[in-house]
């Protein structure tokens, strides 16, 4: 596979060879698909956990789950949805799209990219393997000390959580570094930073947040595991330790994490809205700078999760103030999206419906944000369903709807076939309706004092009706997900062929075949404008498209020499390194010797990886 020519040859290959080619792949598009499929599976696992929780809460004094199981379910629901659904599904889009959107043949470090995926898989499997031992993590997704100490949570549940998250952190940071370098260094000629699609910008900012936020949780988790495994005193009150340290370090990571989760959604919406409004994004530079401002401010607001811990009025006021400031750049983005649609020739396709759904629900989730930032209100809302409603509006209404829109939008590029619009509309309306019916009433019961993370409630609190409604609607969401899966599968076989540019879209990925060839671009495009593909099709309104045809002819001449593209070789070493890391992490729960073995394995594999040539040197060189 070292040399790929312009035409992709499809050969019949044995199942074994096909699987091997996926295991050793370092193609960003295939890694993107791996991320997507894996995160979709975890989406269903996490969704299933949510349904069990809703069954328990459907009626007062629910008897379906015991307390212990309930704790495990809400912990794993939260952890999986954040670290194994939202982040990797965004990573799936990053992987597939970033090189295509900036006119590159792959990411900067293809093998490191494969390593990120396998490490993510290793970490997530490690954490989920806890279910086999009946010891799933049960300390909540933010695992507050000192509930997570050996004294209050014996057994291995928290270790599965902590060590799994550490491994996942390595995967996230490696992937983020890769995207940063890719975006800085692999842009096609002429693709200046301010000509990049907004989605690329959002990936860029997200990746920065990841590399600067993750070390904080890494350190917090290292302390936690040292306390649990080796008996240190970091969160040990009797020894002078302070559980508040965990909260600070966790939220120093945790609040930037919120933007890590939602910025990819912003990016997707910023691609879909202009395409289906047939207008360029409104206020491009304002969009970019707003995201950068959000990222900066995101590091200064962490303690707004801790108003009830008694930090003092000055600290409370400072963090409330910085939190409310974030409403400004977010508001700028909101107005720009609306202005993008305003006066456009809007086509209500399924991706557009999801993007508009994202706009409306994210607005609601965004508006409850400043409410929670107000200290007196927060003291009342803390640990109630109001908070649950708030972040589900942001993460389901904001992120998941945007991701769904992204799937419908780019599915034709990925598979070469359109997803069914008819089924897609069913999917959208079911998901949108039930999503609102599920999460909106949570605000009511929250204001009324219903606590989160508690598995039962007494009858006669006035919460019965709302909880029943929420539970029924949750199953409605599940139904919409089934419709979505059905659409994914059916369209893969029967969808109508997409062609290069089914949406009449704007960015570079639409100029190449669907699915793109392994090397993406026969010749690297030269960029002269933002929304280059749109410009190539329609000019800038002054008839300059003809000029472009001319350069096309020039490019054709060049093409012959460039067609013989040298792609890097597949490699299994990334997988081997990831396996070593996962074994080392798991080893800490089994026996120190296993951990040492895992470390040695990792080191050995890193050497093998380093010494393996990245591509086969061809004879003429």
């Amino acid at each position, binding site marked *: 596979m070292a040399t790929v020519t312009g035409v992709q040859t499809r050969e019949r290959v044995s199942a074994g060879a096909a699987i091997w080619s996926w295991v050793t792949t370092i193609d960003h598009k295939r890694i993107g698909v791996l991320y997507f499929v894996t995160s979709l599976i975890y989406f269903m696992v996490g969704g299933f956990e949510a349904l069990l929780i809703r069954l328990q809460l459907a009626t007062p004094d629910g008897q379906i789950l015991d307390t212990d199981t309930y704790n495990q379910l809400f912990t794993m629901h939260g952890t999986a949805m954040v670290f194994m659904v939202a982040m990797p599904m965004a990573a799936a889009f990053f992987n597939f799209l970033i090189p295509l959107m900036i006119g590159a043949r792959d990411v900067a470090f293809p093998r490191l990219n494969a390593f990120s995926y396998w490490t993510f898989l290793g970490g997530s499997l490690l954490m989920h393997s806890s279910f086999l031992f009946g010891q799933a993590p049960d300390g909540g997704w933010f695992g507050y000390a000192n509930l997570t100490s050996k004294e209050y949570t014996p057994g291995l549940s928290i270790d599965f959580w902590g060590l799994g998250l550490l491994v996942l952190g390595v995967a996230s940071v490696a992937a983020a570094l890769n995207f940063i370098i890719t975006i800085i260094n692999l842009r096609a000629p002429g693709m200046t930073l301010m000509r990049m699609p907004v989605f690329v910008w959002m990936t860029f900012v997200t990746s920065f947040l990841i590399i*600067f936020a993750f070390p904080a949780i890494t350190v917090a988790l290292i302390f936690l595991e040292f306390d649990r495994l080796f008996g240190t005193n970091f969160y040990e009150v009797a020894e002078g330790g302070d559980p508040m340290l965990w909260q600070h370090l966790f939220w120093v990571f945790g609040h930037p994490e919120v933007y890590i989760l939602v910025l990819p959604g912003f990016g997707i919406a910023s691609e879909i809205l202009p395409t289906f409004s047939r207008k360029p994004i409104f206020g491009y530079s304002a969009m970019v700078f707003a995201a950068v401002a959000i990222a900066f401010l995101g590091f200064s607001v962490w303690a707004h999760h801790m108003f009830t811990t008694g930090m003092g009025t000055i600290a409370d006021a400072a963090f409330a103030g910085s939190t409310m400031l974030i409403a400004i750049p977010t508001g700028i983005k909101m107005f720009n999206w609306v202005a993008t649609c305003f006066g456009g020739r809007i086509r209500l396709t399924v991706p557009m419906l999801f993007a508009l759904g994202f706009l409306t629900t994210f607005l609601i989730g965004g508006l409850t944000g400043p409410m929670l930032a107000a200290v007196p209100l927060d003291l009342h809302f803390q640990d109630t369903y109001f908070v649950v409603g708030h972040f589900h509006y942001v993460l389901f209404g904001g992120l998941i709807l945007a991701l769904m829109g992204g799937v419908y939008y780019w599915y034709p590029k990925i598979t070469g076939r359109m997803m069914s619009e008819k089924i897609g509309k069913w999917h959208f309306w079911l998901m949108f309706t039930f999503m609102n019916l599920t999460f909106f009433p949570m605000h009511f019961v929250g204001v009324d004092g219903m606590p989160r993370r508690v598995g039962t409630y007494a009858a006669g609190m006035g919460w019965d009706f709302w909880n029943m409604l929420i539970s029924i609607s949750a199953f409605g969401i599940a139904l919409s997900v089934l419709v979505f899966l059905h659409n994914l599968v059916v369209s893969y076989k029967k969808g109508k062929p997409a062609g290069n540019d089914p949406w009449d879209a704007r960015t570079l990925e639409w100029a190449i075949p669907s699915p793109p060839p392994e090397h993406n671009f026969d010749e690297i495009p030269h960029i002269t404008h933002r929304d280059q593909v749109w410009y190539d099709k329609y000019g800038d309104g002054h008839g300059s498209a003809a000029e472009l045809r001319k350069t096309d002819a020039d490019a054709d001449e060049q093409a012959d020499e460039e067609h013989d593209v040298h792609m890097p070789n597949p490699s299994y070493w990334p997988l081997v390194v990831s396996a070593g890391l996962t074994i080392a992490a798991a080893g800490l729960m089994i026996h120190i010797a296993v951990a040492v073995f895992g470390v040695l394995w990792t080191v050995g594999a890193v050497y093998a990886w380093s010494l393996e040539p990245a591509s086969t040197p061809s004879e003429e060189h």
Partner: protein
Amino acid sequence: MSTDATHSDEAHSTTGQYVRIAIILTILTILEVATYYVDIPYALLIPLLLVLAGMKFALVVAYYMHLRYDSKLFSGFFFFGFTIEILLLIALMVLFGIRSG
């Protein structure tokens, strides 16, 4: 040949510079350690130590890590992380200070 000569001149001057910086670093370290033996008021000692450490830090980063001559992008990455961390450090020390009293 002439280019070779200038090359090696440059090389010697960089070696000279590296050694000069090492000497300065050594002197700064000696000063730091001297504070351990000399009685200096606490209020003066801490700023003094921080300044000395800051100078060593800056010298290594600027010359040994070549940030002075290298792309601004590299400085950007490094000092972004560094600045966030300094701010977090100060904020957390203040918050924990309030907490314990």
